């Protein structure tokens, strides 16, 4: 129990810290991407050196945290634990500009790339020249890029020329289209963490067994991720209930949240009842 708690703490520490790391690399990427699309190589160098510094600090931080004892550590399900470990390992990996392939995530996501209009990309991109201009006229012309205040271009997330069948991390790692959350997580680490924990996004199928987790791109178009307004389903015809109209009680929402752990109380209550 203790060991696993420690491990978990370490993971969480690392996650939080990596959040920071991502923040920094986001800042960097924003500068760099905007200014230097053509100078791709210099961008990568900047980022690499920045992140290896971060990584060293990261390790120290982790060791510090292992000494600390904290009770509220969340113990992850083995599946999630593995993801978190992998996400961490992924971002810690030294990137010598060679393209690495990532292991498939240990939870089910509904596959994506099979549905694309344009897959496999290499059908065309084997011969396609890289477009240096920020305008596409021949193909993908309806694609609107409205993400991150226009600070990045296709090549922030896609490989130039070859390897178009994969997404591209900021460190030039290969990311499968069916694991695009790893791409988003580079810049939206807080959201990704929530997503891994089940507080953002959606999981379907089962609450008790293996979940199917929807990828970010099921809800957010990666090229224009803001969710657009739409008409809701029909307006209810009207509710015939005595309560609605005649209520004279003030219906205020009480936002004060009790700090006592409700679930502990509930657990206790049910235990008592069951042992009766």
């Amino acid at each position, binding site marked *: 129990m203790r060991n696993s708690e420690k491990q978990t703490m370490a993971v969480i520490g690392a996650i939080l810290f990596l959040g920071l790391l991502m923040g920094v690399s986001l800042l960097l990427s924003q500068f760099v991407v905007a200014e230097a699309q053509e100078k791709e190589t210099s961008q990568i160098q900047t980022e690499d050196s920045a992140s290896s510094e971060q990584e060293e600090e990261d390790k120290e931080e982790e060791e510090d945290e292992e000494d600390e004892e904290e009770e509220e550590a969340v113990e992850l399900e083995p599946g999630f634990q593995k993801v978190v470990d992998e996400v961490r390992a992924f971002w810690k990996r030294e990137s010598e500009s060679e393209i690495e392939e990532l292991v498939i995530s240990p939870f089910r996501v509904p596959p994506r790339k099979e549905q694309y209009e344009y897959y496999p990309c290499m059908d065309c991109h084997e011969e396609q020249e890289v477009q240096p201009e920020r305008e596409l006229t021949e193909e993908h012309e309806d694609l609107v890029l409205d993400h991150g205040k226009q600070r990045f271009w296709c090549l922030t997330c896609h490989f130039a020329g070859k390897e178009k069948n994969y997404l591209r991390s900021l460190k030039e790692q290969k990311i499968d289209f069916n694991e695009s959350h790893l791409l988003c997580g580079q810049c939206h680490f807080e959201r990704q963490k929530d997503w891994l924990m089940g507080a953002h996004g959606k999981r379907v199928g089962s609450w008790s067994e293996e979940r199917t987790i929807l990828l970010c791109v099921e*809800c957010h178009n990666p090229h224009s991720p803001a969710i657009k307004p739409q008409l809701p389903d029909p307006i209810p015809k009207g509710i015939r209930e005595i309560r609605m109209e005649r209520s004279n009680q003030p219906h205020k929402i009480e936002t004060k949240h009790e700090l006592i752990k409700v679930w502990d109380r509930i657990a206790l209550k049910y235990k008592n009842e069951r042992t009766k």
Partner: protein
Amino acid sequence: MTDKKAAPISRRNFFKKAGTAGAAIASGTTALAVASDVLEGEAYSDALKEYFQKHYRDMSKDEVKAALARIERKAKRKHGVDITVENTAPYAREDTVFGYALNISKCKGYRKCVYACVEENNLSRDPEIHYIRVLEMEKGSMDLEKSNHYFGEDPVPKAGKFYLPVQCQHCEDPPCVKACPTQATWSEPDGIVVIDYNWCIGCHYCVIACPYWARHFNWEEPVIPKEEINTETHYLGNRPRERGVMEKCTFCIQRTRKGKMPACLEACPTGARVFGNLLDPKSEIRYILENKTVFRLKEELNTEPKFWYYTD
């Protein structure tokens, strides 16, 4: 109280007819003839047995089995559909208590949950019954009284608004249960507040007691198009109801007790809804309760809802 159609007899109006039949038995030989004007053979004996059916929690295994079969036969006669009525017990794994969390910064008021619930739970289409009410609220205000339930002319989300879906909160200390004079409603071991529709007398005490407007009354015989009837049902959940009984959200007992997610969650396009086992420290819902700013509706009433709202 006359039956317009030759519809099968409900528990309440059967009262009257049984009375007539009883008198006939007393007076002579025409008893069954009178009764079979309305019902014949199995239908008649089913109605009789339904009338004398015990409370769900007092029935033996065999009695429950017989009751489930009766409901299935009745649905066949009444709606012409083959349904299965199950009696899935609280989740097999020990220590399961269900809880729900809803992210109000994600909910956009699309009402997908409302209609998924209608379909899953065999809710009457006309008159309309909805277990979920999505309220459109002023940002910054928490006044439910000023909320709008009938939004939807324009695309949502609208600027300056947020959306608050309200359904049965499955209180730990449910006022509806206390109010019920016939014990037709109670909390199950997995925390779901349920109703035995056969024991509900439609007195409305629970409606008045519930501070969340979660209970809905069948003022009329529910109408559901035959092809839209969900045939996978649970005794305490979405089995066909009749006029004169209360009903409400059961956390989709027919699904969740089999490990599935509730229908409203599956339908939500924004991922605002999270369901799970409160007693499992590794569950998503526990992560939310421990790491997000959560609140419950009308906490001051001490009803202890197992339904949390959160923001991020």
